[in-house]
């Protein structure tokens, strides 16, 4: 299943946030959305998943989602959004219960996603016992449990320290390599974008418009920390964004 954004515009009252965004999200690829603070990239992500309605334009699903997908458009949030009163297992079973998956069937899915996210030993732990990186792995396991056709990731690594971030990026690459998934990945961190994105969409400052779409052909598995060619792309992205980011920063200071 592909996704298509068709001339999306959005405004909060008089403030125009997004202007004329059209984009293809083809199956099996990770699309990164980058842009300065307040450019509306998170808003755009909420629209793609149907949590918010654009003022104009449409989000289209092209083709049927796979039959076994319980929740085709599934989010991974920056703050993890785990229920603190449920164990790791309970947090995952939460999203299965409503689909009538219980008992052995649920156990099988939970064991599978916990194994894929290397959490099998922590099934009974409560969120308060986990580190930030592990919490986000639980959130990713939960997202995988509903077998999404598109993962919508809202700055999933931003709340983590830089070492944890590197480790989790490796985990995400490994996951994708084993079984490619489609993802829209919002971030303000260009290093994450060049490591994980098949295509990187650069948005301008408010109102957000697409400035450029940068494609990176190097396979995800071959990319590494501090690769020369990736640094070049990252530099290019930064030149695109620098002035916008400064202007956006000063704009916020004016408020």
């Amino acid at each position: 299943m592909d996704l298509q954004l068709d001339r999306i515009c959005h405004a909060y009252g008089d403030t125009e946030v997004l202007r004329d965004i059209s984009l293809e999200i083809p199956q099996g690829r990770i699309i990164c959305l980058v842009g300065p603070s307040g450019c509306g990239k998170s808003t755009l992500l909420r629209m793609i998943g149907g949590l918010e309605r654009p003022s104009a334009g449409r989000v289209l699903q092209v083709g049927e989602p796979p039959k076994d997908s319980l929740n085709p458009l599934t989010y991974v949030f920056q703050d993890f959004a785990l229920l603190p009163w449920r164990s790791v297992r309970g947090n995952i079973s939460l999203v299965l219960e409503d689909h009538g998956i219980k008992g052995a069937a649920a156990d099988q899915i939970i064991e599978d996603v916990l194994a894929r996210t290397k959490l099998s030993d922590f099934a009974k732990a409560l969120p308060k016992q986990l580190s930030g990186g592990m919490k986000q792995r639980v959130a990713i396991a939960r997202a995988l449990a509903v077998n999404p056709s598109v993962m919508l990731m809202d700055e999933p690594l931003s709340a983590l320290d830089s070492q944890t971030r590197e480790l989790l990026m490796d985990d995400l690459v490994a996951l994708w390599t084993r079984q490619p998934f489609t993802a829209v990945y919002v971030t303000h961190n260009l290093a994450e974008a060049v490591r994980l994105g098949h295509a990187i969409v650069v948005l301008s400052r408010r109102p957000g418009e697409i400035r450029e779409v940068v494609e990176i052909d190097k396979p995800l598995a071959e990319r590494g920390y501090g690769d020369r060619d990736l640094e070049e792309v990252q530099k290019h992205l930064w030149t695109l964004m620098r002035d916008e980011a400064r202007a956006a920063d000063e704009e916020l200071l004016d408020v």
Partner: protein
Amino acid sequence: MSEQMKPQSGIEVRFRGGGFAPKSRRWVGPLVFVVLIALMEWGTRSGWISALTLPRPSDVLATFQDLWSTGMLFKHLAPSLTRLAVGAAIGASVGVSVGILIGLSSYIRAGLVPLVAAIFPIPKIALLPLFVIWFGIDEGSKYALIAFGTFTPTVVATYGAVDNVDRSLIRMGQSFGLSWQSIVRKIVLPGAMPGILSGLRISLAIAIILLVAAEMLGAEYGIGAYILEAGSLYDLERLFAGVVILSLLGVVVSTVIGWIERRLLGWRI
């Protein structure tokens, strides 16, 4: 740095970070009680506290023993505890339900919040005669009074707690396509539980206060009736014995809620 540190003559930096840190001083609380009671005992024995001012603590204890040995303690406690349990259970469960509805629906909020605000300050005791007409002079009016008194603080605490439930968790539930029912039962209710329980602490203390008021009309037995009778007889020993029972009841209720909190809210950091 490779050079060796030479001890120098200088003024040591003064420590100024002391105080203001709460420390556990378990013995102080009981000590205050013991000193006050000893003072009362000594004062009433030596005569500078007249029999009209305060009862002698040892006499209160004797009254307590009488209550125990004659079995009257349970004759008074049983109906009071029943009234407390039934009244508070009705008030708290209806209060929690209404509070959740207010927290979830803006229509119900707009309709009921002003009503609750209007009911809250009414002294429920003033409505007792009305309740007698509505619910009868026997147990009905007593249940109603206690239920009514616990209802309003529970509603206010509950909808406040629902408002404080992390919105990102609700959004998460929606993003996974959970049904409205599931979101309320599995996300909103447990998320509001800390606020609901701390509200219950207050509501149940109010229920104990209202117990005395509820037993003003038509109660032959009950701790409240016992206290009122002692008051009208100006029998200070019985009055104090009754008040001590109410205090103990308050301590027990608070302990039980603390226990429930530890059981249910172990997930909190």
